[in-house]
């Protein structure tokens, strides 16, 4: 059947199993929006109208983080696309599978500085895994097939498809390719057997090993394999900010998060280990601190599907290129073989005792101060009330770190945040995406007053579609993390970090028709949280917290992990 390009796009989405799209219309995508409303029912695609294009990307990213499926965003040309760039860069840094459709001026106007024209493939070249400009309508369906394939395989990432308006208007016979073959793109899934053998030998012999799990474990769904490896080899296991939840926080072998705001015991364990086994992590500077001091006495095993990640930041003794789940399976099999061949796993009792002693010495802590609400306590209570089972989406800043430290994620895909790019404004719209994807789960957006004010217009979105996101606003009237750095590293000079001039958030939510609650004293926290979390539909819960609370431990930028400031 002949269809116009706009319909072909939507039929292609249906073929890809897309159920939800986050978007914002405009001139260049009007044909698409027209087909969307005409065929809404038969397509089975629900479109969520956000209030700023950035939120469509964050929504799609939250959707991807909460499900592992590819998120889809649709925005118009020019400003629609440029507004989406931060969201694309975020997905690129956090390796989230997204396909982003942008409108473009008609092909005959490209390059003419036409109204709402921007070179979107040019602008997004360095922050997409790949991008396409469709110049012939025959290429449309194959391009979409390729875009979904590239976005979701290998190391996932955002793929942008730029659609000139005439491409969505022209008619052609529709057929969706069943398979796709890209000869220049073949992600390596299986680890090289020799490399796996050597790595496992080192794992068996290590006396002070640490298993270090990153976001790649989520991308590959390597949960069961990683847990088995940790248990069989008795490995203390830490997760990066992006890896949290890939290994259960309540597991006896769990060390929690490492890095700049990692636990004292975690960072000391990494600092003193003799073998660091990295699966799907990239040795980010927020993890390593001063690179020359990072785990100096250790050998490194690095499993990553992206070969360019291995050896990028740290030396690597045992590189294994491959998919985290597949390589972990290979490792388990290899482990059986080596143990069958008489190998004996090194004893680690002293190592575990040492780590337990470090934990006892300096656990996470906070000081109660009368009536003033301590933000850490709020997160602690959130965990207790939700039994650690909620989907929690954090924004960027102090509250993000407290949540990472204290929420204790036991299940995978329940933790969303902007780890690599650190894009303020992520938390709330990402929670919207998660709530759309997982309507049966409680979705909480933990946000600060800074980041929330970048995206609070999305209150209209949650109201319009009655999306039951619970917004937990940790309000200290400061750009808290900036203020903390100014306090600790700039002699208390609070340069432009005070944002105490702000709306009455309860009234604001009310004006959008969103139910809101506020707590101002410690003894109101539990009750207010319970009330807010139990109220159906979207809810805002504001916690007026201590204004100058700090996140501890903190590894100062450029310092070695062991040189944490503890209080």
């Amino acid at each position, binding site marked *: 059947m002949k269809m116009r390009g706009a319909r072909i796009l939507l039929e292609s989405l249906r073929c890809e199993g897309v159920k939800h799209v986050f978007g914002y219309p405009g001139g260049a995508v009007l044909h698409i929006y027209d087909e969307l409303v005409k065929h809404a029912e038969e397509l089975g695609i629900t479109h969520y109208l956000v209030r700023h294009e950035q939120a469509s990307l964050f929504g799609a990213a939250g959707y991807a983080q909460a499900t592992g499926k590819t998120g889809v965003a649709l925005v118009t040309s020019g400003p629609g696309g440029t507004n989406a760039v931060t969201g694309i860069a975020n997905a690129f840094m956090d390796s989230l599978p997204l396909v982003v459709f942008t409108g473009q001026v008609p092909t005959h106007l490209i390059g003419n500085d036409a109204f709402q024209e921007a070179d979107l493939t040019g602008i997004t070249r360095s922050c997409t895994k790949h991008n396409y400009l469709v110049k012939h309508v025959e290429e449309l369906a194959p391009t979409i097939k390729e875009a979904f394939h590239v976005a979701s395989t290998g190391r996932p990432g955002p793929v942008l498809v730029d659609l000139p308006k005439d491409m969505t208007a022209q008619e052609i016979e529709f057929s969706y390719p069943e398979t796709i073959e890209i000869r*220049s793109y073949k992600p390596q899934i299986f680890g090289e057997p020799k490399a796996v053998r050597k790595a496992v030998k080192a794992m068996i012999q290590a006396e002070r090993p640490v298993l270090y799990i990153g976001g790649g474990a989520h991308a590959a769904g390597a949960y069961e394999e990683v847990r088995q490896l940790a248990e069989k080899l008795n490995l203390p296991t830490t997760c990066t900010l992006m890896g949290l939840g890939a290994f259960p926080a309540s597991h006896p072998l769990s060390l929690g998060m490492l890095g700049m705001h990692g636990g004292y015991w975690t960072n000391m364990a990494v600092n003193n280990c003799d073998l660091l086994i990295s699966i799907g992590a990239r040795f980010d500077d927020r993890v390593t601190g001063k690179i020359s001091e990072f785990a100096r006495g250790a050998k490194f095993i690095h499993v990553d599907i992206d070969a*360019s990640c291995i*050896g990028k930041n740290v030396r690597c003794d045992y590189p294994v290129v491959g998919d985290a789940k597949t390589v972990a399976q290979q490792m388990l099999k290899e482990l059986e073989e080596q143990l069958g061949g008489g190998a004996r796993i090194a004893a680690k009792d002293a190592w575990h005792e040492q780590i337990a002693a470090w934990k006892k010495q300096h656990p996470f802590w906070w000081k109660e101060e009368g009536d003033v609400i301590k933000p850490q306590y709020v997160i602690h209570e959130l965990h207790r009330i939700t039994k650690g089972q909620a989907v929690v989406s954090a924004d960027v800043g102090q509250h993000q770190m407290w949540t990472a430290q204290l929420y204790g994620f036991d299940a995978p895909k329940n933790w969303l945040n902007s780890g690599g790019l650190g894009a303020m404004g992520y938390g709330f719209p990402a929670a919207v995406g998660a709530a759309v994807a997982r309507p049966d789960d409680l979705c909480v957006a933990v946000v600060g007053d800074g980041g929330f004010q970048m995206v609070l217009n999305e209150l209209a979105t949650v109201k319009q579609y009655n999306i039951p996101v619970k917004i937990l606003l940790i309000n200290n009237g400061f750009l808290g993390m900036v203020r903390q750095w100014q306090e600790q590293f700039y002699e208390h000079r609070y340069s432009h970090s005070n944002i105490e001039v702000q709306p009455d958030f309860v009234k604001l939510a009310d004006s959008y028709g969103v139910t809101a609650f506020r707590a101002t004293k410690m003894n109101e926290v539990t009750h207010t949280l319970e009330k807010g979390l139990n109220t159906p539909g979207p809810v805002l819960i504001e916690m007026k917290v201590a204004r100058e609370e700090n996140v501890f431990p903190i590894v100062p930028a450029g310092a070695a992990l062991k040189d944490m400031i503890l209080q």
Partner: protein
Amino acid sequence: MRHTISLLVENEYGMLTRVAGLFSARGYQIDTLNVAPTLEEGVSRMTLTTHGNDHVIQQILQQSHKLIKVLEVTDMTAAPHVEREMVMLTVNAHVGEQRREVLSLVEIFRAKVVDVSNDAFILEMTGNAEKVNAFIELLKPIGILDIVRTGPVAMTRVAHIKAQKVKDDDEEFSELTLNEKV
């Protein structure tokens, strides 16, 4: 150290900017760059020279390979190879002695005179970068009015390709024997 890197790419819209953009975004330097079609339609060969320590070069190879439409990345420097670049120069050739001197250099360097006028020659010469540099240095005192250089293109030596094939066929074939064979 200077490296010559060869990329086989799908000749698609924006391919050059993808490669060039990768280099600028990650702070690598492109010293010379050459792009031309291959025998296979739709596939182009990019030959570029860059410099950096082993770590940087390793990253350049890996990051380039990661680009979706890059088919193959080879560090030519790592194996025996032949490199050539072409230079064209407009040089002073006013008087008899000057003309004779230029012509003798042309002969020594196996260059060619491709255009003649009353007061200047256009010369063409191919060779590796060293030879091209030497030619230029010798012509400088005579007076170079204009110059264009292509930057190197490179090709792996046939003997090495054969040895590599043996290595691929036999997993245990060691680096040492490979080097001996070459």
